[in-house]
């Protein structure tokens, strides 16, 4: 393995060292790696497997078992639609369908222009705001199918980058 290769994985090395190359920290390691690019690239996983001397199959076992990991690149904005019980009762499924229709993708997919990835979560623990959808770090409460277009347009239209939380 040449120096050039090591350079590309410099940040990964830092993460591995931070956890002391411990095998039991594998989930935390993968979470930190995912934070770099929003997904787990294949060559990185191969690298981690070699560095930690853990079979690649075990890494893939973990990466496919836990819901928070993605093996494919994700879009610039990540939409998470909460499907917790409180959100479900208040119409979360209809919101999800409306987003799917608007972006022309299904849950778990990314738009062709790599702008949006659409995901669902079991519960964000903000049930008082149900139904909730989160785009990146911004929470949208009381979402209805009718509001979907307006929410998404904030990320595609001219207003992107403005402070959305300030009401």
């Amino acid at each position, binding site marked *: 393995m040449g120096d050039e290769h090591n350079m590309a994985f410099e940040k990964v090395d830092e993460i591995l060292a931070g956890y002391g190359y411990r095998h039991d920290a594998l989930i935390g390691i993968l979470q930190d790696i995912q934070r770099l690019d929003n997904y787990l690239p294949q060559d990185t996983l191969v690298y981690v497997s070699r560095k930690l001397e853990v079979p690649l199959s075990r890494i893939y076992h973990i990466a496919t*078992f836990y819901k928070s990991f993605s093996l494919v690149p994700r879009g610039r904005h990540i939409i998470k639609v909460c499907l917790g019980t409180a959100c479900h009762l208040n119409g979360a499924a209809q919101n999800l369908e409306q987003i799917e229709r608007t972006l022309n993708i299904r849950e778990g997919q990314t738009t062709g222009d790599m702008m949006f990835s659409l995901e669902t979560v079991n519960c964000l623990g903000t049930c008082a705001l149900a139904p909730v959808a989160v785009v990146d770090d911004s929470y949208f409460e009381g979402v209805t199918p009718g509001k979907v277009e307006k929410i998404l347009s904030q990320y595609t239209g001219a207003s992107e980058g403005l402070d959305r939380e300030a009401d």
Partner: protein
Amino acid sequence: MKRIESPSDLQALREGILFKRDPDQKVVRVCCTTACRAGGALHVVEALRKGLGDRGLSDKIQIKKTGCRGFCENGPVVAVEPEQLFYNKVKPRDVPDIIDKTLVGGDPVERLLYADPDTKEKIAKEHDIPFFGKQARHVFAKTGRIDPTQIDDYIAEGGYTALCTALTTMAPGQIIRAVEVSGLRGRGGGGFPTGKKWRTCRQAPGMVKYVIANGDEGDPGAFMDRSLMEGDPHSILEGMIIGAYAIGAHEGFIYVRDEYPIAVEHLTIAIDQAAAYGLLGFNILGSGFDLTIRINRGGGAFVCGESTALMNSLEGKVGEPRAKYVHTVESGLWNRPSALNNVETWANIPLIINRGAERYAQIGTAGSKGTKIFSLVGKVRNTGLVEVPMGISLREIVYDIGGGIRKGKRLKAVQTGGPSGGCIPSGKIDMPVDYDSLKALGAIMGSGGMIVMDENTCMVDVAKYFIGFLMYESCGKCVPCREGLKQMHHILSGICEGHGKAEDIELLTRLSVTMSDASLCALGGTAPNPVLSTIRYFRDEYEAHIFDRRCRAGVCRNLFEYYIDETLCNGCTVCSMKCPEGAISGEKKQPHTIDVGRCIRCGVCYTLCKREAVRVR
């Protein structure tokens, strides 16, 4: 930071903190946990900082970013002390008024006060609001008051005194005895007696033992653990240190859901600060007892809330449960004796030590002691977190604290215990809420999720929702759970889509028995509960779906239709413009009509119509 070497050091530190504080100083407490942040609480704090700075009041008035006060419905919430004013739904634009009228002038800002929904009367003080009046906030006493990122705040409120008492005046056996006498049962779902668990773990052979806090709050609709971890992380640590000392553990782990970033942040800060004071690490309080605590983030798998799955996950493996012929208190994490408790259970420990086990046990019913935090959500007016004594009736929780059902609708059922729980019909809401009564009703306490359902909730759909959730979350290791859930979901989907067969109810019941008998862990074993309890109390709804092909609640798409009430429609055209199928027609300012054949029942028109002219039949 100076290390605390003894109880007298802690006492001196507390007195020092309190001495520096001016009791008359005005304090503005802004809830800054997830729900209030979502509503813009951090912007309110910024506006306050700036406003006070501009007026030269930064030194005179203190701003505190606190944990959750539970009244999430009305967030962001702001409390002003010493006047004890309680402001709701505060926006940055309200800040100038709060500063000028309240902080400088001493008068309340009327429009931000809580208004009684029936009488419209304004209520100024927190404890006069019915939502708070009937609660008994013991575990939650400091949450919402202290800044969770400041250990001094926790110590000033009496924090870590229980640890002092335990480590310097009590033998491990005495602590375990106290927890047994207190009658504390696990707050995470199982309701197993905590003292008994600790005793078995202490007696289990082995030099190395572990304490673990379960913060993998996976039940949808429950968020009290998040609130505790975000708002009062030290109470969890204090409970864990006491427990570790009692059991003889020197390593602890807190397993936190990946969806709770603020909880991870606050717990990390809390561990660092406690270690800096010497409350974690070597020779804690000069007692010779050592303990380190580490945080592990979960990966987003519901099954990891199960103890053996959680321990597998802590070991860096996939979170699959194992059969519990040997209990985890004897052979758990890395095959060593491990005491795993929910974070809320841990937070109860300091209370038991401080108050004494007998006094703690005075609250509650014969079999369920102390208080329990419930997350009251769904179609109830005051959603949020409520801490109540065990044995309170469901009616008191839903109507007195919760303020009744939204939009004047009728209560249909309350679902408790998460996906493995059950639905309690409106006719049974005078039953006391405790472990045993809920079980008798076919529901469970679970982690304390309480989901209120009204007449617009379809109970078959609710059963399908939970089974779908569990099907997705089943780890797939054992056949009864993996295949049973799949078949159940298939049958329930059929019923909801209008293909229900007469024998479906019987088939569901039989599948349920097999699954609860033969599944490996509690996920599969309790999975049939939502189906069984909805069949038990709402069989008529199943029958209406199967025989009449009707969903009276207007949820199951093939079994109802939308129409426009001509007397209410003013022809604003919003619905026809937004209808994705072009199924709505009509002239401007004339009543519109929906083409039932083209309508996909997406609900866009139903939610957009301001006049509620779009109806369900």
